[in-house]
């Protein structure tokens, strides 16, 4: 029987995949970033439909900021961010298409043919989920949680170190300093 939850999951899933396809079909990089934002937001709505309230809201908030930053970088780095010149920026399209279709079919085959066991009809309410997740984060999964935090910090420091311009030493100035 098709439930309202199944309808919502199907609708938001379809929207997410459609906007995911639009990301690679438009010539405008800004539109690509916005399409990815809509795709991820539809995914967040899908999480909400699956009663994962905390994860759904987190997904929408995180992706809104992440994709806005991505759009800014697109404008910064692209010669033609609006896509007015319709410049083609693809290569090995046939191979990529085959790889994408094969991976999709393989994943669907696994989803359909594997026996996933009994399905739970009810999930804990939103408040209980947050309590359980908080206890999980600060209990059994604390080491993983802390490792994730440290890894993000390390990535931020590494990215900043890579991104700052190299210091140009002036040999003449160095010689002058040495003479003094």
């Amino acid at each position, binding site marked *: 029987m*098709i*439930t309202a939850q*199944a309808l919502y999951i*199907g609708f938001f*899933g*379809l929207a997410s*995949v459609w906007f*995911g396809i639009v*990301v*690679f079909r438009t010539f405008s990089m800004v539109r*690509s*970033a916005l399409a*990815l934002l809509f795709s*991820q937001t539809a*995914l967040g709505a*899908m999480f909400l439909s*699956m*009663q*994962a309230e905390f*994860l759904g809201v987190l997904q929408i908030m995180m992706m809104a900021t*992440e994709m806005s*930053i*991505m759009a800014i970088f697109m404008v910064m*780095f*692209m010669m033609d961010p609006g896509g007015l010149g319709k410049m083609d*920026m*693809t*290569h*090995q*399209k046939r191979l*990529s*298409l085959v790889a*994408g*279709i094969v*991976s*999709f079919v393989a*994943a*669907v085959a696994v*989803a359909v043919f594997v*026996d996933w*066991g009994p*399905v*739970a009809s009810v*999930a804990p309410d939103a408040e209980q989920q947050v309590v*359980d*997740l908080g206890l*999980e984060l600060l209990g059994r*999964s604390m080491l*993983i*949680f802390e490792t*994730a935090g440290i*890894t*993000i910090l390390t*990535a*931020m420091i*590494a*990215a900043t*170190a*890579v*991104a700052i311009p190299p210091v140009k030493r002036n040999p003449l100035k160095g010689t002058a300093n040495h003479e003094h």
Partner: protein
Amino acid sequence: MSIELLLALITGAALFGVGVYGALSQTNLVMIMMGIELILAGAMVNLVAFWRYLHPDNPAGQMFVLIVMTVMAIEMTVGFGVAIARFRAKGSVEMEEATDLKG
């Protein structure tokens, strides 16, 4: 198997396939990163669906989703760091031109 779980898994598979196509076909570094984001999004849908329909009483399922979100953030951070360095050095983030390490 419930129709809801099947729909979620098919959505995850489709996002994964679209992401693989994007990551392999694009020449711009930021567009490649968008493909990888879609691949990770596909994994995330599966994790949420598995938690909700197979083990809703085990919060470790949600923990996995948080880890995937962390990986997404790290990928963006490092990717943009590399993009800035590449743009400063070569004036472009086109990966077709990145043949410096080619043997």
